[in-house]
């Protein structure tokens, strides 16, 4: 177990290094930072001087070395554009992205798994087929379009919708259901961690973005659970469990579901990475003040330090999550507890 963790850890370091290399290499190709840092009236001489001071004239290797050393010490330099330490800026933005990602991940799991189980159990049921087809829409529309359509419906249309009178008795004003089209509402500052989870409008603000972001994963998870269920349900041990007269609930949600979990955990683990990445789009559409939005702006403004830090952070999350996933395997699958050798292979 311990040996396994250590091996994992070393692999993670390797991953981080490669990512660092890749992200660093990438920046060698995008724009000229100096043009970002100074206004357009700065003279050539000044630009040259600045370039020199920034060490942009050093050999690549040297620059990379500095990059690594600083990164390890959590120093990603100063944002060219905002003239602020990138680390601070990222930390400011982290909560927004993490809360959004977490909520949408939760959303996709809590809705996706039950739907998956259902569609898996009644494979040919009508409702199951409906679920399957409808869920496809989740992956048939580009995220940004879903987001914009949601805004169009729940922010604009509802805001201007006339009150609906019910039998002339009382009137319902649709605008009470109106959802905010941008930002995260009121946030509460818990020692540097700005959370939107504690206020009503903070939660309201979460609804549309997290649905937009979670829809794709939801579809993915639901279909995964379904196919896994179908597989598991025809295994001998399920047949045997039935032959032993166990109750359906025990079989479906105990034996069957538990056996589908391993792949689900894997995929979910992998998906977290892409959730955070896809947050770039969601955050842009909903003006969600998260890292993704900051990253996109950074890309457009060639704010290299931010980009570097962001990519490193994503990779970091990924390896951490992978470690957690591996831990979870141990909890779920006893077979891995004896021979660690296999675990990584299937990881």
């Amino acid at each position, binding site marked *: 177990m311990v040996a396994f963790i250590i091996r994992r850890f070393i692999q993670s370091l390797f991953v981080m290094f490669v990512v660092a290399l890749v992200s660093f290499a990438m920046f060698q190709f995008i724009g000229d930072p100096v043009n970002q840092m100074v206004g357009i009236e700065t003279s050539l001489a000044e630009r040259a001087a600045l370039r020199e001071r920034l060490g942009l004239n050093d050999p690549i290797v040297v620059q990379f070395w500095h990059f690594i050393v600083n990164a390890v010490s959590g120093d990603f330099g100063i944002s060219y554009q905002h003239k602020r330490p990138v680390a601070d800026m990222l930390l400011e933005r982290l909560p927004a992205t993490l809360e959004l990602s977490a909520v949408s991940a939760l959303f996709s799991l809590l809705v996706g798994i039950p739907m998956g189980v259902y569609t898996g159990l009644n494979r040919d049921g009508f409702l199951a087929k409906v679920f399957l087809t409808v869920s496809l829409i989740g992956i048939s529309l580009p995220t940004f379009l879903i987001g914009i359509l949601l805004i169009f419906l729940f922010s604009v249309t509802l805001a201007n919708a006339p009150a609906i009178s019910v039998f002339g008795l009382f009137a319902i004003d649709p605008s009470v259901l109106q959802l905010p089209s941008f930002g995260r509402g009121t946030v509460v500052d818990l020692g540097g961690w700005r959370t939107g989870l504690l206020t009503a409008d903070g939660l309201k603000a979460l609804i549309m973005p997290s649905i937009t972001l979670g829809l794709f994963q939801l579809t993915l998870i639901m279909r995964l659970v379904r196919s896994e269920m179908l597989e598991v349900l025809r295994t*001998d041990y399920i047949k045997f469990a039935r032959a032993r*007269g166990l*109750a359906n609930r025990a079989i479906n949600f105990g034996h069957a579901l538990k056996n589908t979990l391993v792949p689900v955990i894997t995929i979910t683990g992998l998906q977290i990475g892409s959730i955070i990445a896809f947050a770039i789009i969601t955050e842009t559409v909903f003006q969600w003040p998260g890292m993704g939005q900051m990253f996109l702006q950074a890309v457009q403004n060639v704010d290299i330090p931010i980009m570097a830090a962001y990519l490193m952070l994503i990779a970091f999350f990924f390896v951490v999550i992978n470690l957690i996933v591996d831990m979870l395997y141990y909890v*779920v699958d006893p077979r891995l507890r004896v021979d660690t050798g296999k675990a990584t292979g299937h990881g």
Partner: protein
Amino acid sequence: MAMANPLLQVRNLVVEFPTRRGTLTAVDDISFDIAEGEVLGVVGESGAGKSMTGAAVIGLLEPPGRIASGEVLLEGRRIDNLPYEKMRRIRGKEIGAIFQDPLTSLNPLYSIGRQLTETIMTHTDMTPTQARARAVELLAEVGIPAPERRVDQYPHQFSGGMRQRVVIALALCVNPRLIIADEPTTALDVSIQAQIIALLKRLCREHGTAVMLVTHDMGVIAETADRVAVMYAGRIAEIGPVREVIKNAKHPYTHGLMGSIPAIGHDADRLEQIPGSMPRLTDIPPGCAFNPRCLHAFDRCRRDRPELIAVDDGQVSCWLYDTAAGRTTAEAKAIVASRSGTAMERADG
């Protein structure tokens, strides 16, 4: 043959599989009984419908397979048409089952103990502690060393043979009256097979449990069964006391099957004695399903399907034994025993 007080009665059971290429009849109108504590062996080539019969009895036919007609009675009450919940309570409690592959029969994610206790607690009102005690007891009974320790281990920590013992323990844990053992040993090494069979035999005797032992291993049958039913293409070719069937087979097919003195591990799937192979269930020939391969087949065999005819203290479905043809059982046996079909032409004429 009427049995005093049969535990299980199967009457004209027909199991069908609707497929895209028409409906195929996996089990075609078979009837047999199993008495209290009796071990009935069911043999036949794969696809003969043995396992299907077992599954039908315990009500676990894989859809779209279904019982098209006929009845299954347990101690006189019909169980083939019970609602799912009712049947569920019978499974494991009244009728246990053991499947072919012990390696896949156990849920890899649950400890042995958990799987035992949950079964016990489903069918009895034992407390978890009692159930656990019972589980340990059972493991000991099926000959697993250090059960107190093993009970908390997981399937992958057991060898194949050990797992099959666990499976048996699981099947017996609430003393069912009948156990359907579907190829319980085929997946195991020959060396272990004997032990498992012995164990099964012992336990069933001790618990007075009847067994429907589905296998294609004549050796196992010879070892274990009191009576044996030989199935061919979804029908019973011959059924009778195991000695009878083995020592002097009446049905040409059985005769072929018994061609050589069987030893444990002998595989009935390989039938050097009989040329050709079992027909696909979709195109069973009219008349006797065996007629294309039968050395002694004559017109009627190709025309009418033979019913089970009581011969000695067994039953056989073969026109040779049709008393209406005015042939004595001895003559018929002689024909079957003879290697040439010529004798028969005469008999027919």
